[in-house]
């Protein structure tokens, strides 16, 4: 165990200099109400029992850990294990968090939920959960993303959600977030805002991390049970960073495990067309928290570029910013360029590995290439990247 104990954020939502509550006064009452409701729910056995019941019987948890044996052989060293979050209901880790927040919304007596979405995966998860609990659901999505991710828009509509196109700014995730915030401030009385990642004003980064940390808790148990030991390293992609925080957080006290985050470098960091906020950004304030941001020299937020719509966000969760800065040497954030060739070379896809039949996704591709960059371990010790949702495979 590490000493001193890791117990961030503080009561005002700060992870060192990051996080916090940078919102207009009009949103403060809503955040106070949420903070109070979550503080009560967090320690309420009834709430936790309902959350766990739905994770098990609705989401289909625990998700398996799968040993990608042939891929490991091909890489010639490290043993790769995949945490199969893609096998969750709706096909991604996003639903873990949506279930938690929707149950909280119901406890708070809010009949309407809103969400922002980029790739559409969080929108689909929110729409699904809203349908399950009989809530009205409005999803804000950049008009550019609506065009790119038509299939997910169709799924959301099928589930009874209203999808509102956002045409301001860059017409992508960050603008959808702005618009959802505006809806929330206007309809505070009856509306719960389900943020999809570990960003936003306190208590969202903490709350989403807590709901997602089921991934890491399961992994610790499963690795112990299947292999009698923990992996040497965890690898997860970082956009906003909810899947990565979900698997990293329970591992923070386990000192022997390296935690590696991989960001989308788009056409390369030097090209300026990327989404690598931790690698190439600098600290600033956006969407209610202080964190690493991609911004120009005047502090205006710049547009991001990634082959994966889910990683196309100019910020990153404040806890990642803190982990990067905190000097914890075993936590590293890498960046990887997009490369279709790299994808087919390194992926455990059906085409190259008829036996595995896992569909490639750009997010996993990034993680895979990070694995390839690691020195193969002659002892054949297990690496275990978190396997992400397959929402992006069509691109």
């Amino acid at each position, binding site marked *: 165990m590490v000493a001193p104990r890791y117990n961030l954020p503080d009561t*005002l939502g700060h992870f060192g200099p990051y996080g*916090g*509550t*940078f*919102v*207009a*006064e*009009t949103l*403060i*009452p809503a955040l106070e109400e949420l903070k109070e409701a979550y503080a009560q729910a967090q320690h309420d056995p009834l709430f936790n029992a309902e959350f766990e019941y739905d994770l098990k019987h609705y989401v289909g948890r625990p998700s398996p850990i799968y040993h990608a044996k042939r891929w490991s052989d091909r890489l010639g060293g490290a043993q790769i294990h995949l945490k199969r979050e893609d096998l969750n209901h709706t096909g991604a880790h996003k639903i873990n968090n949506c279930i938690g927040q929707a149950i909280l919304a119901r406890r708070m007596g809010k009949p309407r939920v809103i969400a922002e979405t980029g790739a559409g995966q969080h929108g689909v998860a929110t729409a699904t959960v809203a349908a399950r609990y009989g809530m009205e659901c409005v999803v804000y999505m950049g008009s550019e993303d609506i065009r790119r991710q038509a299939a997910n828009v169709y799924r959301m509509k099928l589930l009874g959600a209203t999808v509102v196109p956002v045409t*301001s*700014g860059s017409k992508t995730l*960050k*603008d959808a977030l*702005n618009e959802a*915030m*505006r809806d929330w*401030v*206007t309809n*505070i009385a009856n509306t719960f805002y389900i943020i999809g990642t570990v960003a936003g004003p306190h208590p969202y980064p903490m709350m989403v991390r807590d709901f997602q940390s089921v991934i890491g808790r399961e992994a610790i148990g499963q690795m112990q049970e299947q292999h009698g030991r923990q992996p040497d390293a965890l690898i997860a992609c970082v956009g906003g960073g909810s899947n990565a925080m979900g698997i990293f957080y329970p591992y923070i006290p386990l000192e022997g495990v390296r935690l590696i985050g991989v960001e989308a470098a788009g056409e390369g960091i030097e090209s300026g067309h990327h989404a690598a906020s931790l690698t190439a950004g600098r*600290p*600033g*304030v*956006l*969407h*209610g928290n202080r964190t690493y*941001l991609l*911004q120009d*020299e*005047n*502090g*205006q*937020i*710049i547009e991001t570029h990634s082959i994966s719509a889910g990683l196309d966000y100019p910020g990153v969760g404040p806890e990642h910013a803190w982990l990067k800065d905190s000097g914890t040497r075993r936590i590293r954030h890498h960046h990887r360029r997009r490369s279709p060739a790299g994808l087919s070379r390194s992926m455990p896809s059906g085409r190259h590995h008829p036996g595995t039949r896992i569909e490639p996704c750009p997010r996993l591709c990034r993680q895979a290439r990070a694995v390839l960059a690691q020195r193969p371990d002659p002892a054949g010790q297990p690496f275990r990247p978190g396997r992400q949702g397959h929402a992006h495979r069509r691109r």
Partner: protein
Amino acid sequence: MSKIQATFERLQAQGRQALIPFITAGDPDPALTVPLMHTLVEAGADIIELGVPFSDPMADGPTIQRASERALLKGVSLRQVLGMVANFRADNNETPVVLMGYANPIESMGIDDFAATAFDAGVDGVLVVDYPPEEGAAFAHAMHANALDPIFLLAPTSTAARISQVAALASGYVYYVSLKGVTGSTALDVDAVAARIPGNTLGYRHSGRRRLRYPRCGNGRCGRPYRRCGRRRQPHRRNDRTVDAGKRLRECSCLRLGTSPGNRRRKRTARLIQALPLKECHELVDQAVTAKDQAECLRNSPQVQPA
């Protein structure tokens, strides 16, 4: 005594209320901002709120977002806005100027650097929308150290504890957000505002009035400044003419101003609006929209990827 405080005291002695129009710096064209500021003063503005454009104005409605986008398209930066204030000060050393914007451009410049430069430029107060009191202490101290007034927001829902927090940090005036939602929203509930006027409700009567000794200004339809200077007054319900003024301005979409109802204030606002070169603004807005469309066409056109 700060220029803002002096203005309010002068107005109070005259039994007048302050008229505080807002324009976004650099919209529809950077060259127009300083002349617009002078026009506003000539037409009766007591204080000018100058919006600093930001790429993600979360707390503003579509009108101000579009104004910011047009200004950014012309490359307007925080330093340039400070330059505009300095230019304005060359001819006007009396009218207080308050910058209104978001935290990131200021943090990007550095809070201390910003405070010093803003003081040199002749800025009097700064309102940062996404600095609530719990995150704004360092900012407020830097402002005070440079003889600038940090302006904070209060909402109808603010508790007594928060009012005290704001009162401990704020100076100049306090911006009372009189409607739910974003700026320019039409969802202004006059009765609800009336019920929440400081001094009119339990919470404020027992706590706020004593702790909050600064003038309070507020926004409303089209950002209607609502100010109270000691005396209690209900907002007037019949505000048709104000609405008309609001509509005219929304068409222009680069300005956010208006007045709280009451004949004299209505007349002052109408006079102020008539003095503005609205036709010229409209033309520039149209040009900006066309330029933006062109820029987008260029961006979306297929590009040859290097092999």
